[in-house]
């Protein structure tokens, strides 16, 4: 009976291991660079595509707005022409005249009579109104006149102070009134 001696495992070569590790690292670097290049390319293409799409959308928006304005102008002119045609037609004139004669004129006459009667009975109301309006106008006019004259006084005072080399001094208090 023969016996076989167990084979002993060969010892790992440290140089080969270091070489394998270096190769693996370089492989990872290449894969990472490839992935980074893919990302950059994707971003570049996406941005370009978005820019082109935005420009196209802008052009479409401008065109749409111009068309909308054009159609609005056309619709307004058409409506105005139609209204003018209808309003100046003899038929509408006759209808309006008839309604005015039938409804509005009696109402206006009745209201006018009432107003005249009220004025005749109570003239103080209108007189007070007119008087108040007149006083307000006069006050405003006088205020403007006084403000303009005061501004002129200030300007002349400044000019004379400069001409006569007077130092700007505070004026003494005006005298007392009775």
């Amino acid at each position, binding site marked *: 009976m023969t016996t076989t001696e167990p084979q002993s495992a060969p010892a790992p070569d440290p140089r080969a291991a270091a070489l394998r590790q270096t190769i693996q690292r370089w492989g990872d670097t290449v894969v990472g660079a490839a992935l980074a290049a893919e990302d950059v390319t994707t971003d570049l293409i996406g941005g370009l595509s978005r820019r082109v799409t935005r420009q196209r959308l802008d052009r479409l928006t401008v065109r749409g707005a111009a068309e909308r304005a054009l159609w609005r102008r056309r619709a307004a002119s058409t409506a105005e022409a139609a209204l003018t045609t209808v309003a100046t037609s003899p038929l509408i004139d006759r209808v309006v005249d008839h309604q005015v004669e039938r409804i509005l004129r009696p109402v206006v006459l009745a209201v006018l009579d009432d107003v005249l009667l009220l004025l005749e009975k109570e003239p103080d109301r209108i007189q007070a109104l007119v008087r108040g309006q007149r006083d307000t106008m006069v006050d405003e006019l006088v205020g403007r006149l006084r403000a303009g004259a005061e501004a002129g006084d200030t300007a*002349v005072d400044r000019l*004379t102070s400069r001409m006569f080399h007077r130092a700007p001094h505070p004026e003494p208090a005006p005298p007392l009134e009775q």
Partner: protein
Amino acid sequence: MTATATREYAGPVSRTLAYLIDAFVVGVVFTAGAAIAAMITSVMGGRWHALAPATASARLVLLPALLAAYWWLFWTLAGRSPGMALFGLRVVATRARRLTWPAALLRALVLTAFPIGAIWALVDRRRQALHDKLARTTVVRMP
């Protein structure tokens, strides 16, 4: 009336405008009076052309006298003339409680006879013109 400390002196522009308005009013009144006198004269048969030199001479005397009387009357009664009232001005006495009629008369006469003395108000600290100095008055802004 009680004293108020916040009033200020009237400047030359306001006073000149008030003067011009008063002179315009007096001029209109005088012209209207002259026109009425001419009308009466013509109705009574007089010749206006013969009276023209006399009226021209009278105008040189009557118009300033009318202006002085106008100012004297209004300053004594109200302390302000219509032109001054329009611009919110008032004549006040500097050394008395109120403007007396002699002071108002003196002021009116000096202003009428020597209006160029008003220029002194441009350089005076209290804006007093010559007639103000003589009558011891000044003009304040008092609406």
